[in-house]
């Protein structure tokens, strides 16, 4: 079922990026216990104290959802994802995960998917 707003999104190139990182990403998404123990390791979470700054929240709601929808996401979705992977994350690569998930690389894939659709970091904010 295709959403109308996905028409301007190049799903094929998103899927290409998804496939390139498939095994690692899917496995990481699968094993995440949703325990939220990563929260305090993010200094942005410590400043804002909002779930949207939790490392797990950031990857589950970007790359996680994109995998779930197999790349069929709307521009609005990616614009929201942009804020999660750029505004809410500086990719300082210091997130703690009790299970050992490589969160920064997931955020990085989220960024490259956004970029592939011309959705880039906002500098005017």
């Amino acid at each position, binding site marked *: 079922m295709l959403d109308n707003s996905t028409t301007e999104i190049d799903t094929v190139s998103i899927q290409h990026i998804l496939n390139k990182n498939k095994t690692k990403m899917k496995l990481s998404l699968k094993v995440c216990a949703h325990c939220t123990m990563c929260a305090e390791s993010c200094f942005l979470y410590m400043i804002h104290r909002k779930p949207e700054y939790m490392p797990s929240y950031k990857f589950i709601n970007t790359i996680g959802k994109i995998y779930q929808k197999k790349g069929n996401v709307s521009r609005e979705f990616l614009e929201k994802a942009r804020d999660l992977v750029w505004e809410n994350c500086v990719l300082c690569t210091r997130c703690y995960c009790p299970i*050992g998930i490589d969160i920064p690389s997931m955020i990085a894939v989220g960024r490259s998917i956004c970029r592939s659709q011309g959705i880039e970091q906002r500098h005017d904010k």
Partner: protein
Amino acid sequence: MEISNIFSSALLYNLARGPLVWISFLVFFAGSIFQILRILSLTKNDERIGIQAKDSKNKKKPAKEKKKEAILSWFQQLKLTIVGVSPIMIIVTTVFHICLFVVPVFLLAHNIMLDDAWGLSIITFSEKTADILTIIFLATALFFLLRRLFVGRVRSITSLYDCFIWIIATAPFLTGFLAYHQMFDYRTVIVLHMLFGELMLIAIPFTKFTHMFFFFIFRFFVKSEYSLGKGNRSWY
């Protein structure tokens, strides 16, 4: 036939305690090996990531410097780790996972069955200990559930799937507990217990439970800032 009758039927009972046990163990072990190999295949035993620096090849190990006397006691250092950040969570999760493993493995009843089948058994807890551990397990599981439902940040990333996984993990213990105490219809409860246990075994390699392998491989064998071992593997 009423639902309760299905679960107390002899057919299901025999199925659950016979072939289904073997099938679930088979699936569990085969699936586990598959998952472990798959996870390992995602990493490589490489000294360095990316282009190798020429010096890295013939770099001698530097002589060990005298370790500076630590300012912080071991306890203070521990407090700086995740243990200090989320102490309750760490204690609860540790207890939860230990019980999850030891209760079924060292349970007397399970070992008697093992003995019946193969004539071998391992040390077991007394029934009373097992009972207490089960209660502790159920309490920690309840803690997780409440946390999932009522702590905002946890709820923000909770889906139905998480609840489903929680049920699979908790149900064998709950039904085992009920069966041991002969609450409700024993026959129904024990069948449910067996079915849930088998479901969990099958689920381990293919669901979120896979973090059981992922944890050991990534925290001990893959190097990262937080690795617990001297891992020298890295993501490819």
